[in-house]
């Protein structure tokens, strides 16, 4: 609720610089000098609640998890410090590497699936026409549902014997949706896309609406068609939004848990036992809290690394104008 201000702040960011640039001298105006105010007591006071929350709900548990990863604990007994034992076990079990591979696959697949669709939908919904507003409302519906509810619903719909295929008497829908180790991935990715594309569409819609109309007018005068406008103006202008959305997507995919837990429980077998799920199952079903904590630490490190990596696509100067090339 408090942390990660960077990504969430970004959609506002572009608008901000945009307006500044718009008002200022066009072209190569030097970036606005950052205003540095002396630290005041009121600043500290305002930040205090957020800091306190962050400390209690993010930093402290993180420290605790790191500490636990050097112990052996079954969840109810005494916690024994066993040095690197849990780490050794964690790194030597197949399940860890399998889960890591799956979660990386999950990240790549969700990004490839959701980003193009979100951008297209976002650009489409950015238009001010009435019918597009109506469609926008419909598209955003899945966003209102909780993951657990979505998972339970789809589990019933996809039930091999009593699912929608039987309900509507449509034999071609009668596949082993959740029991086939390949098909289950297509199903999972589709459901996750269905759930989260609306959110990313919302971000892109806002960003596209921020692109000044003058650019499109200029392009039209130069004879650029709609497709050319999309690739030469819309896409480059969405660079920072893409970074924001991608960060959320990548880190989000890294922690997908609820839907998979309810829908497949990691199955069939271990086909969908991605690392975050493996962490939970190892900790709360296998009662191996040491290993589970080590897995959590691995996830945190990968998550931070990926988030920083994606952010670095934005270039070194985060304050640089987006209007370059316009």
């Amino acid at each position: 609720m408090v942390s990660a201000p960077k990504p969430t702040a970004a959609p506002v960011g572009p608008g901000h610089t945009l307006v500044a640039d718009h008002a200022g001298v066009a072209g190569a105006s030097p970036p606005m000098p950052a205003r540095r105010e002396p630290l005041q007591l009121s600043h500290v006071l305002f930040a205090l609640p957020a800091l306190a929350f962050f400390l209690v709900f993010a930093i402290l548990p993180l420290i605790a998890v790191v500490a636990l990863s050097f112990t052996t604990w079954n969840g109810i007994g005494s916690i024994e410090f066993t040095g690197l034992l849990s780490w050794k076990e964690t790194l030597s079990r197949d399940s860890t590497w399998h889960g890591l591979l799956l979660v990386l696959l999950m990240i790549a697949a969700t990004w490839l699936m959701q980003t193009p669709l979100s951008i297209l939908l976002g650009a489409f919904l950015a238009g001010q026409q009435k019918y597009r507003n109506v469609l926008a409302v419909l598209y955003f519906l899945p966003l209102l549902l909780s993951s657990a509810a979505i998972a339970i619903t789809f589990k019933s719909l996809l039930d091999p014997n009593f699912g929608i295929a039987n309900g509507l008497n449509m034999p071609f829908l009668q596949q082993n949706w959740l029991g086939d180790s390949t098909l289950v991935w297509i199903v999972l990715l589709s459901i996750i896309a269905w759930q989260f594309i609306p959110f990313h569409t919302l971000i892109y819609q806002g960003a596209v609406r921020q692109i000044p109309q003058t650019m499109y007018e200029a392009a039209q005068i130069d004879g650029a068609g709609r497709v050319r406008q999309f690739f030469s103006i819309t896409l480059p202008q969405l660079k920072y939004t893409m970074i924001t959305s991608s960060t959320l997507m990548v880190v989000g995919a890294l922690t997908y848990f609820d839907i998979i837990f309810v829908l497949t429980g990691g199955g069939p077998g271990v086909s969908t036992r991605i690392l975050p799920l493996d962490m939970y199952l190892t900790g709360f079903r296998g009662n191996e809290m040491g290993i589970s904590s080590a897995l959590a630490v691995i996830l945190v490190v990968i998550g931070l690394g990926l988030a920083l990596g994606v952010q670095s696509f934005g270039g070194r100067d985060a304050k640089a104008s987006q209007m370059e090339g316009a």
Partner: protein
Amino acid sequence: MRNFLFPRRSFLGAGIGATALTLAACGTSGPGGSGGSGGGSGGGDSASIWQLSGPPNEGIYQDSIDAFNELGEGTLEVTFFQNDAYKQKIRTAIGAGEAPTLIYGWGGGGLRTYAQESQVEDLTGWLDENSDFKARFVDSVWNAATVEDKIYALPIGATQPIIMFNNQKVLEDLRAEAPETWDDLMTVVESANSAGVAPISLAGQSRWTSMMWLEYLLDRIGGAEVFDRIAAGEKDAWLDDSVVEMGRKVEELVAANAFTKGFESMAADSNTDQALLWSNKAALMLHGGWTYGSMKSGGGSFVQDGLLGFGPFPTIEGGKGDLENLVGNPCNYLALSAEASDSEKEVAKSYFLDGMMTDDVAAAFVDSGSVPVIQGQDESLAASDDAEYLQWVYGAIQEAPAFTQSWDQALQPTAAEELLVNTEQLFLGKVTPEQFAENMNATLEG
């Protein structure tokens, strides 16, 4: 959506700790909404209990607790949970010091860990003081509640052996009888497949459902002693030849498409496996005795019309196991949390005596189609609507040369989880019988 508003990184960071907190926090206001359990009970004496949801047991326990609360010996607040969710939740709650006063469970390995960590009260002395109470229960129930000669839990509910159920109508259409040997079984599988019904209904995603097949296969092949050695933690006990042979039988079943299509993704908590049987879509189902009651209440008139057949697990040629050997849960158990306050413990003990398994509760179990673990039920069983089934179960329990406890309950929790993972893999053909034996054998050390 939550994932986006609450940034992942903090979720991640909070990791296990926060999850534990959340789970534990849910404990005081979970489904069933009793509220105010856990911590000390300031005023009027009260205690808490968690129970499993689902008919018919949920109704029986609710009634028994309501009746107890009327007695004025204190108030017991009950919260109901789904089976699979409960198993994870209760352990987390105990670890977090948020356990309910009365801890419902299956005895065996799980209870042993609680006892070793002094999380549950030793009830041996209390039972000695109340020997009349103790004598009401059938003798066979105390074994799974005993850790190092001390009794840590009291029996509750009904005896639940695992039974080979069948759909009489489907079998009749196939011109088959309930299978008594392995060859019979394979014949039924074949003819069911060619007739277009599922031979065997199985909710494979729940894993312990597939495990029930392993339990009986191993028993029939190697006898009850093989698992006795495993449960005792004897070196290389899993490497017994009959374990591999058991795995081969599973391979044989899978190769013959014996299990219903899509069994990999069916979960027992939704009872779709039972629905397949009572809706004439499957011929056989190996399941716990408790499903008789839930099919009776949930399966239309299937049970009432006498279409539900039942019998022992088939024997296997050349195998050592007796047709009369049983596996399953001797019964369920209630343990008393060591963390509970004195007043909570008093209420809980009053409930043991005057609420838990009174004659009314025993009668309610008989009505629901199960055999309560109380002595001297012969008459009420004979008078029941389900007399045929109940008397068969009662007889089977009395005569069984061996009654092996469900493996996932008999083993320590970590080994049990490893067992369930490997069981699922075996049924999916992802590990060979040899790998299964080796993976499981690795859990015996340390």
